[in-house]
């Protein structure tokens, strides 16, 4: 009998963990960040994808998913249509309007964009968490910036993105064991990476005996232990997220490699509802005239930004 109740308790705890409520304002802010990054990714961060437009179709080697669906061989027309459609729908989706319709459209277009990107002989590993964000956001309805109302559906969506972020680290350590074995720790992977891609920031490290071997132990250690983030109190969780961002900054300075989409997806760990640049700007321009008190259940969270009236639902 106690076995059953323990099992029930564990089951309930698991269900609750997967759907821990978050403020709708956090969903709104995350949504804006994710969809704006889609546009930034196309126009700035990953412009080489569009360059595939000039590569003849016989060099297109579709991924498994591209063979199953089956998706067309990219032509200049298809690539241009996808490109502009993503920019327009990405910008519209960033406003938070028609979240399901625009969200699913952006997801479908961006996923096809990724399949085109990775079907010419090289698959990148920097955006699984970002794809997860694009896949879960359309399951959520309208969310307004600054809205404190808690949502379990939103909590589930952010939880899935968090899981994908941490899986990117944890499974990367696992893959090192799969492909290289325990020898990876004492091998020359980092040395060779610095020799191939090193910068002023990192080139000296190959001169220091044992330093890059130590770095390899540290990397695998951090990757394997990254799931502890799910057991930390917010304060420590934010410090760990800061550590993750620092790790990527050091990687960028050392090897000029940055997982930009992953870095955007990782925002899901932060209390984004407090970041409200538009409300802040509005407050600046209106000289605080709109900053009057709201009914108590519509008060925004403590923040230096003035309040924006919430539309009653």
């Amino acid at each position, binding site marked *: 009998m106690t076995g059953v109740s323990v099992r029930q308790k564990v089951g309930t705890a698991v269900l609750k963990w997967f759907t821990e409520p978050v403020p709708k304002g956090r969903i709104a802010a995350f949504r804006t960040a994710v969809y704006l990054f889609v546009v930034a990714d196309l126009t700035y961060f990953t412009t080489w994808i569009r360059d595939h437009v000039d590569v003849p179709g016989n060099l297109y080697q579709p991924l498994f998913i591209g063979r199953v669906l089956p998706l067309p061989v990219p032509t200049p027309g298809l690539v241009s249509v996808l490109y502009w459609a993503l920019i327009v729908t990405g910008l519209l989706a960033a406003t938070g309007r028609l979240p399901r319709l625009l969200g699913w459209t952006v997801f479908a277009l961006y996923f096809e964009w990724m399949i085109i990107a990775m079907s010419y002989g090289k698959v990148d590993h920097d955006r699984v968490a970002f794809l997860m964000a694009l896949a879960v956001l359309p399951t959520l309805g309208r969310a307004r910036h600054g809205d404190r109302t808690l949502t379990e559906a939103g909590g589930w969506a952010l939880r899935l993105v968090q899981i994908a972020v941490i899986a990117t680290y944890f499974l990367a350590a*696992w893959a090192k064991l799969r492909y290289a074995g325990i020898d990876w720790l004492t091998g020359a992977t980092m040395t060779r990476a610095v020799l191939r891609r090193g910068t002023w920031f990192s080139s000296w490290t190959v001169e220091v005996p044992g330093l890059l071997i130590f770095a390899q132990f540290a990397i695998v250690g951090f990757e394997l232990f990254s799931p502890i983030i799910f057991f930390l109190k917010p304060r420590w969780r934010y410090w760990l997220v800061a550590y993750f961002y620092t790790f990527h900054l050091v990687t960028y300075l050392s090897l000029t490699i940055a997982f930009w989409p992953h870095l955007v997806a990782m925002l899901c760990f932060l209390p984004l509802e407090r970041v409200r640049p538009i409300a802040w700007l509005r407050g600046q321009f209106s000289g605080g005239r709109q900053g009057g008190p709201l009914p108590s259940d519509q008060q925004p969270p403590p923040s230096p930004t003035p309040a924006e009236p919430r539309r009653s639902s």
Partner: protein
Amino acid sequence: MNQPVTAPVVARLVSGGGTLPPVQNETDDAQPRTERLSRTGRTIRVAVALIIMGLMVVGNQWGEDDHFPFGPFKMYSSTDPLNKPVPDTRVHAINTEGERFRLTMANTGFRRAEVEGQIPRFRANPELLKSLADAYHRRRPTRPKLVRIEIVIRWWHLDGARATGEYTEETEVIWTADGADR
């Protein structure tokens, strides 16, 4: 009579359901209310989460890059002995003017890693390199035509984990405009 359904109900139907109406926390006005999931909505979501996690783990252990987005996270997952030469894959081209230069992502739209990924195909069928020439001609329409492309792997030698500055080159594949040969 003309309003059989209320607006919020329509809104809920349009938005796809899955959630119960918001529950107002009556006891404490300072606390934000919580929109709870129905039992079904919660069960389905947790099941989806577990399936996705399962696919990620299975893909990581048994999948390949081909299974994107559920392939292995194999960035920097290989290892080599310290002093094994470092490969540097280069695509050299010669045009009708006799100029010799490198084909890169900038002038073909094809990444170096993609050249490396498709080397087995190029080896088996050097005529495929004509497609790289075509890509170059599309991006540089005013430049002289290419007559020869070679994929060369330059092996940089190391000593004590330092580049010695010496290298050896291996020509992997050759294509000429008159007809491919190896």
